[in-house]
């Protein structure tokens, strides 16, 4: 079938969301690791900061990213009329 302008907008919105969340994923993982030695003297909750990020902080961010994506995409489906019928 032919895609409408609305469909294309939905896909672009999806790509924007995916790109933004992947950028956060990348920064939290590789950004912090790259500067780990420089950040090692900063304390957070009694942990050295890079250790805390690797052991807990990054993981919490991952969970939140996936949760946000699921929520936002399910909303976008409704907004652009591409949601599945019924549940």
């Amino acid at each position: 079938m032919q895609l409408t302008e609305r469909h294309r907008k939905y896909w672009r919105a999806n790509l924007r969301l995916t790109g933004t969340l992947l950028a956060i994923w990348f920064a939290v993982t590789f950004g912090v690791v790259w500067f780990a030695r420089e950040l090692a003297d900063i304390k957070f909750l009694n942990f050295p900061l890079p250790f805390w990020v690797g052991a807990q902080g990054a993981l919490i961010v991952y969970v939140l990213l996936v949760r946000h994506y699921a929520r936002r995409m399910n909303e976008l489906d409704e907004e652009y009329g591409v949601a599945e019928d019924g549940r």
Partner: protein
Amino acid sequence: MSRAFANRIKKYYSFYTGAFVMFVLALAVAEYMGMPDQWIGWTFMAATVALYAGIGIVSRTADVTEYYVAGRRVPAIFNGMATGADWMSAASFIGMAGTLYAKGYDGLAFVMGWTGGYVLVALLLAPYLRKFGQFTIPDFMGARYGGHTARTIAVAGTILASFTYVTAQIYGVGIITSRFLGITFEIGVFVGLAGLLVCSFLGGMRAVTWTQVAQYIILIIAYLMPVVFMSYQVTSMPVPQLVYGTVLEKVTEREEEIMADPAQATARDAYRARAEEIGRAIAALEASGSNGESLAQLRRDKETAEAKARPIHHHAEPFPGETEAERDTARLNFIALTFCLMVGTASLPHVLIRFYTTPSVREARESVFWSLFFIFLLYFTAPAYAVFAKYEVYTNLIGSSIVELPGWVASWAKLGLVKVEDINGDGILQLAELTLNPDVIVLATPEIAGLPYVVAGLVAAGGLAAALSTADGLLLTIANALSHDVYYQMIDRQASTTRRLAVSKGLLLLVALIAAYVASLKPDTILSMVAWAFSIAAACFFPALVLGIFWQRATREGAIAGMLVGLGVTLFYLVGVKFYGMTKWLGITDVSAGIFGIPAGFVTIWLVSLFTPAPDRATLELVERVRYPSLRG
């Protein structure tokens, strides 16, 4: 209807969790009344395996959709638990805390890699694969890139990545059963095999899914309980994840003291002397042209002694090393490993096919969230385990008299997991004189915390659940790739449902037997190859899957070339570095070979696609269909 179904399932599993807790409490009472340890071990094993078998029998099925994708009606939260159990292997459950104990900060590559990969699954793959809605990953390759070539390569990649992995799980089952039941390893392997087949043989994915949910509940209770108790004893706070920062500070203080202690230095010097002595023996043997086996053993001994002679680093210090260059290489390896584990997580077929089983795209997205949440519970506890164990060892073991060591040291020394050697002969235990097998951290924590034997039995049952659930998922993936993709799609498209399922089950049995046989040989190479599965799967599948969804222009020729080049580069680097002493590129270890293979795959697909004719109308429509949960105009 699906709401009512979800509610009924919720009721079943709440009741089940309650019953399991009661069962553990009843055993605790029995132990208090004098039930011997061996009986407790047997009761735990028998009860849990009987439970899995029961679920397997109740879920038996003769329907293709039920057998391959559990009828596509697994609610998001339960698919999350099943994915969690599917994902967390014996290595995660038993080995991870030990790796973190040994490597400190550098071990966190596993923690981040094995959770962060789910962000890629959620954003780039799961919803689209669910919308595609077939049965296997080769199915997607076959449909998107047309013809049998792409499908065949994907089948080969699936088997390559999954088989070594499943062998290692069965090996893990053998270790656990032999340790806790007192039977020999080989019998343990085949007992484990029986435990596996009762779940998957009768009911395929449907049975495996519902057993995995049950296994997740057991494994997470078993993992959290000992460390919660230990945290309560050390800090009087039962939330280990929150309070181990203060314990880490104490460990750091102890590390300073240990480094300043002259007695520690004498132990290290003694090991350095031994390493030099072995070095001379090796040189003499090499000069006389002696055989390889004893030489290889001597080299390993020399490495062990050298490692013990080295001064320790702080647990939380990132990328320790003697020189700036060494530290930079360590950082590069950390990043490469994390990247390969993440992309590998998002490419392992046994994980991806789980997202075919949800009722809708919407639930597939939610399901990745639940999967990651349930996996997160274990992975963010593992570093706490390591720190608590280190605290215990550094404060209560190191520096005490060797004849007065606590009881758990002796009991695990009997099994060869703990070794103590008074190399400098002063009768006091120095850090270098203690050797801990990584597995002992999780297995011995109940005893270290002084908990009753029931908890040790619970941990063993949890380890068994982790190994069995992963092995089941992998076995099913291999058997389905062979039966569905090779037999049904390529050999006999007219095969009846009964025949397809019969072939599936026959292959399942065959693959399971081969894997058990290989595991019973205890092959060292197979075990070290498990970590390769991630690089192999990542380089073979990830570029073709992602570009297949996000780039309509990706062509059949591009994908075929990309998969072959990605796989080829990865295997070339792995085998070259591991077995032929090839010079490492940028100092990257063989485990992270995917760091070269994945980009090679992407670039190849891109270049070849641009030089080949664009995909036909039907393929473009397939991509459009996959991108939108529903297309109504």
